[in-house]
């Protein structure tokens, strides 16, 4: 199996998504933040032309404009609430996270669109992710001051 990518909100599971995305570019065109890029051969043969989100470049801001424009059902057009999005789950690398290493940092906590829900601060002021709430938008990965990012969104289905 080739590398998995973060897909726009509402994307079906990767196998179903691959089968039903007709590479029409409508989700990319509608995205006001240019979060979506077009997959190329370097992303794998079966990903050519498909929409990919690289959160470190631009995350998904959950405006929810793309699911309804998808003509082929690759994105679930009925999805309207950003809380129901499941693009992936953020994972913190405690070895490189500033807060977990003792420096005060609340970047991911502050930016999270599900504020104080998907990312909470524990008693020692370290960010902790609630896997049931996290939608995988990647805003945390985008703002993390560590380089490379200490918080990374694992796309849905990736082990």
């Amino acid at each position: 199996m080739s590398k998995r990518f973060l897909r726009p909100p509402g994307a079906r599971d990767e196998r179903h998504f691959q089968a039903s995305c007709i590479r029409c570019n409508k989700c990319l065109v509608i995205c006001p933040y240019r979060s979506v890029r077009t997959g190329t051969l370097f992303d794998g043969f079966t990903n050519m032309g498909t929409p990919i989100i690289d959160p470190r470049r631009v995350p998904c801001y959950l405006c929810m404009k793309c699911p309804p424009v998808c003509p082929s059902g690759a994105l679930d057009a009925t999805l309207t609430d950003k809380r129901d999005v499941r693009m992936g789950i953020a994972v913190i690398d405690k070895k490189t996270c500033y807060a977990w290493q003792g420096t005060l940092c609340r970047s991911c906590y502050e930016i999270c669109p599900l504020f104080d829900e998907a990312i909470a601060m524990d008693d020692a002021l370290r960010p902790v992710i609630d896997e049931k709430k996290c939608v995988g938008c990647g805003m945390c990965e985008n703002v993390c001051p560590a380089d490379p990012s200490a918080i990374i969104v694992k796309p849905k289905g990736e082990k």
Partner: protein
Amino acid sequence: MKLPLMRRIAQTAFLCLLVAIPILNEREISFITGTLYSMSIGPVDITDPLSGMQVIMLTLSATRALVVSMLIPILITFVLGRTFCSWLCPQNLFSEISDILSRKVLRQRRALVPPTPIPRWGILALVIVGSLVLGFPLASLISAPGIISLQISTAVFEGTVGLETGLVAFILLAEFFVLRRFWCKYVCGVGTVLGFFRCGKTLKVTFREDHERKCIRCGACSRACQFDLDPVKGKLYPLCHNCGDCIAACAKSTNGKNPLQLRF
């Protein structure tokens, strides 16, 4: 106005539209969005039947929106034949220009293979099998009109073009130097699928003589045909895409009393 000129204007205008759509979308004028895989005009969605058909085969399900959006091109094709290919498709426009240049420069005229729809049916079957094996709509990667419009869109939005553009370049070079018009004639899956949607009443090139309109056996029609078909002999479909070049040639030879006409 003469048929070939009207067609060239339609083709050019459509290509301009394909360039204008992403440029306008980028400025947030989004009445029309999308590419030739799927396009939205206001609230109306239009999806390429080949792409839609593959999604249905691969997922064994279809959203109602997808099926409805496929119906529009299917209905147009039922009425007008494969006029998308001849009057709108950007690949056909490029191939025609390449063919005109090739004839001027290399003076090559004939195709190497006689016209037959069997290669294109075989290729479509291969593409479908390939899609089922690979698990994604393979036809999207070899749909020349889709690639052209998608690459225009990515060029506008991301400032790059993908490697798929190489396929279009390959087609044009191969047609220029070796196999005249081979893509539209033998390969293109979009055209093959559109070719399935016809009935007795579909617009077609018809040879009908009467006391006014007599065939003078000049052969201008088959010389004008880019797919080397012979309209007098008939058996034009599914290869013929109603471009009307044979009719214009016939009208010229017979001073407007052409026995060849487009009829329903």
